[in-house]
């Protein structure tokens, strides 16, 4: 079994969910997403973030707004659309189920004494 491959598959699966959950907290600038993820000890390159955001936006889950900045040209801030919020709640549900299942399975098996 290729452990590295499995690892990257796992990360890939939750990456979009992580990003959506950050945006779900409120309007956000892409580099802030990176920072917030860093705080959570998750590292992502901006070069991978931008294409993902564009894909999510094209899928109708995100929207962006131009916000004037003090220095230089306006910046792009991303927000959730209604469809995005819906998708996020579905994903959250899936994640909770999964997390439960995984934590249940990874615990050492307790002998069934009641029976």
């Amino acid at each position: 079994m290729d452990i590295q491959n499995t690892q990257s598959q796992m990360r890939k699966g939750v990456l979009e969910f992580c990003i959506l959950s950050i945006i779900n907290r409120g309007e956000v600038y892409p580099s802030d997403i990176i920072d917030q993820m860093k705080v959570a000890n998750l590292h992502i390159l901006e070069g991978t973030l931008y294409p993902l955001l564009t894909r999510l936006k094209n899928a109708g889950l995100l929207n962006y707004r131009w916000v004037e900045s003090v220095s230089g040209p306006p910046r792009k801030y991303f927000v959730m659309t209604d469809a995005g919020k819906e998708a996020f709640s579905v994903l959250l549900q899936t994640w909770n189920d999964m997390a439960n299942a995984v934590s249940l399975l990874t615990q050492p098996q307790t002998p069934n004494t009641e029976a």
Partner: protein
Amino acid sequence: MKKVININFQGRILPIEEESYETLKQYIESLRQYFDAEEGRDEIINDIECRIAELCDDRLKKGAVCITEDDMRLIIESIGRPADFEAQDGFEATTNASASNANQQKFSANDENPKRLYRDEQNKVIGGVCAGIANYLKLDPLLVRVLWILLFGISLFAYVLLWIAVPNTSTNQIGSARKRLFRDIDAKVIGGVCAGLSKYFDIRVRYIRLLFLVPSILLVLNWNHFHLFQFWEFDDFPNFIELTFSPSAVFVYIVLWLVLPEAKTTADKLEMRGEKVDINSIKNTIQTDMEGFGKRAQSWGSTIYNKAKTYDAQSAQTPSNAVPEPAQRGGCLHFAGRTIIILFKAFVYFILGVITISILAALFGVGIVTTGLLPLRHFILEDGAHNWYAYAIIVFFIWVPVIGIVTAIIRKIAGIKKANVWVRGGFWSLWALSWIFIPLFFATLTKSFSKQNDPMEQTYTLPNAKVNYLEVSAEPKPKYYNHTWLKIEPFTFLDQDTVYVRNLRIRIVKAASDSFEVKYVRISNGKTMQEAERLASLINFDLQQKDSTLILDKGIAINKKDKFRNQHVIMTIAVPVGKRFKITHKGWAQVNVRVNKNGWRSETHSGFTINDGFEGDDWDQNIDTESFDYDRDVEYIMTPTGLERVDGVKSSDDKEDPEQLKNRLEELKRESEQIENDLKKTWEQKQKEADDLKKQLDKKGDNLNRNSTKKESSVSDTVKAFAFGFDAIKLLVSRFQS
């Protein structure tokens, strides 16, 4: 000391070092390629560009004077290279971030990125197409190359196409040393094309200049009959060389001149040389630049001074329009330029390939023929030293270089760059050794052939000389099985000790009487006169007439003791006027037929003139003018004027009818006269028109006077030009007539 430029990048003005600007440009290009298939490519690139601009701005706000190479490196690292995206393909936890960073550093095109077809710059031999395909299909590049060479004809075209069409890996990696073709204006003679090419191919500039210059001079001198490969007697190849090199050298030069951008900036110059653009190399280039600067500044100054003088008041406008910026040329032109360069490169490789392959084939051919003749050596070579010389030459002179060249080519294909000095030295010294044996061998060999016997003419009395038709044919061979499948002419084996040589020449002459006559001489060479005489007397040449067929012996027998010393027979057949004869293909394939139109003359004088018999010429070659093409298996008839084919077909080199030539000359004369008349008519017409114009101008009023004089002068100019042209044509016509 670094040059800083200002760029307008995503709405921000950024002072940036020139080299980091180049890095930025390459980085964005690599992103563009990576996201090529992506739907929102432009948007992604735009977002990333915005972010880069922002990061740069941050740095400037913190007090940096400009964006340095280090800044740019950090920024690019934080955003990530395409290679990193591939490796990461998501995100990762801090714990193994450092480990995978190390992985990212090791990235190279051949162990990652199996999804796209790239030309592999790292493992390339010519253009990297084979290596790229091997990488894509996960095969050994060597295997792909060998298959490619086996299918050479078809694949050459495909190779060039792929070379042009497939992007190379270096565009996927930042800062890789990629060469580009520029015109080198610093080392230029005309346009800097040759200098640029020499930098690109890493060949000395003088060879490239020669490649352009020699054909151009040939073109000027109109040396059309200069055949480089004339001794090959191979018509197509020299024509091909001529056609491609002489007129097109000038053409290619001009096209390249137009298409290639000139190396202007330092980064350009480095790219031209294929060096990595970094601080050190830039420093070096600038230093060499400065050395030549003084001189160029001087000449520049003088040209500008001259220009200013000649243009005077207008000079303010012209310079801005006069010099088109090569940088402004569109991407389309650049693509065309790249295509032409690749085609040119492919063409050079093709020529080199053809030359290598033909040399190899020739060497192999010689090797095989000489080795194949080895069993015959007993019939030619004397025992002892002579024999050993022959062996030494075959091994050292022929097989050693064949093996050497084949090894070298295989090593080149296999990508082994470092040559083994000892192996190479060994090959060369063995080959040099053969040069000692060659003169020795030929000296002894020519000595054994040096003398020739004094031939005696013998007559074969035909039992039935008065036949109307005589067919010359060889004795039919017993056909138990076809044992002649590997027959090396002119030798044919019959048994171990004897070889039969079919060395016969036949002359056809006019008979004095009404009966056929046959005479022959036996000739041989030898070390001494006596030996030659002895060998000649041993020639057993039997003739037999059966009805109307003259049957020749199966060949001149040569045994191992007496050796082959060019024993041969010259036979003369005298054909009476009005009688027919034919020489068949059967048996004696090597028979030389020499037809003498002037009858018995050579015989009535001092026997035979045999000096023409030793040229080794073929029967169908006309060396003396008195003979003509002779076709075998065709019936001929002797007429008072000479031989003629019975079927009436004219021989190919017959002269044209003088009557016809005369007619053609008359026709040409008539045509030229007509052309002259036509010209006269148009001349008159144009003159009339000019007169009309003049009259019209005169009619117009005084107020238009100034204009009319101007017009008049232009009209008279055209008239003058026309008259001049007419005179020139007249001169030409008169030349043509004479």
